């Protein structure tokens, strides 16, 4: 299964998920994306920057944090960072926050597989 297939699969298994993106948090680049509608590249890069700022804050407070959630009135952005020591990140944009645990688990599984395959 390709990375694009895995992102599609994750998007379909999470209720109300409109975007799943795989990116590099150190460069802020969204490398592969599965989306139910068009998202501009600018938007993807801005939300990755937002994730990076929040992970940086969390890193100052504690170690080993792999999850950041950012909610706006329109959507909930869930960011899961690889625990394998690289800068891979998966970002899911959902309609609600109720899917946070499921997204965290599935995205971390995907990141582990990516890291093993590399």
């Amino acid at each position: 299964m390709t990375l694009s297939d895995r992102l599609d699969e994750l998007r379909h298994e999470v209720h109300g998920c409109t975007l799943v993106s795989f990116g590099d948090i150190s460069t802020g680049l969204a490398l592969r994306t599965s989306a139910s509608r068009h998202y501009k590249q600018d938007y993807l890069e801005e939300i990755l920057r937002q994730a990076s700022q929040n992970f940086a804050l969390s890193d100052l407070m504690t170690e080993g944090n792999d999850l950041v959630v950012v909610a706006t009135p329109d959507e909930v952005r869930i960011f899961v960072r690889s625990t394998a020591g690289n800068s891979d990140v998966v970002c899911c944009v959902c309609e609600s926050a109720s899917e946070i645990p499921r997204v965290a688990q599935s995205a971390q599984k995907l990141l582990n597989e990516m890291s093993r395959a590399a």
Partner: protein
Amino acid sequence: MRHSSNAHMIAQDEPVHRLRDALLRVTESSETLREEKATLSKDCAELIDRLSQEIDETVLPRKLALLSDTGVAAVLVVSNRRLIELEIDARKIVIDAEKDSDADTVARSYAAALKTLSARSGPLRLRSVCRAPQIATGSTACTARHLAKYSTASSFENRMKAFLKLCHPSSMGWIYWSGDGQNLAHDPHKDTIKRLRVLEQQLEPQANNQGSLSRLDRSGPICSAFALSEDLQAVIATDGKDRLIAAFPRSKIAAVMTNWHQVFKHARQ
């Protein structure tokens, strides 16, 4: 799944209902419409409902007046189904186009001014005055639909405080800064509050440097969550004026974020 499809159907039905209401209104007799125009708005809710309807039916630029027993209490400029300007007692209500750029915040400001006027002036009557010069609908305008949401007293409730009320029982501590300068804290666990204070210091440069934040960060209310320690999650929420930094057990984070999303999502509908 059923909830989702019902919600979808309701969303699809809304334009149909609006069209039906518009058609029914077109068929009203001119006498009924005249009577309606002459009706006094007894309170803020009636006033905002009445105004919203008038704004929604006004396309070309017009000046409207609100009359009290003593004369003209307010003048409104309306165009393209939007409230463009509001002047109360000959003083224009000023909207900060940089800070309050979203239609919801603009509507809230106009509605708050109308609420104060209604409380002070008593019953008000709406009257069309004349055509207004052509005015562009800028970022300090709001649609009739946005304004109509503020017809009830509960719509003025501070959403940040409503969120705090909801999540306080599961919180392990919080610090709240109100836009009017109040600073409150709930500190049942001294160590947790100490960590939140450290986080507060880290956030200070960001709070003082709003201008350099990305477009997404400045676009309105926002709430972030991340690990504060192995067992605790930090939540940072702001509506642009008030700010809350709180700690919650890791297991509660989905519920807390759901609470925030519900409070602020409902405010937009």
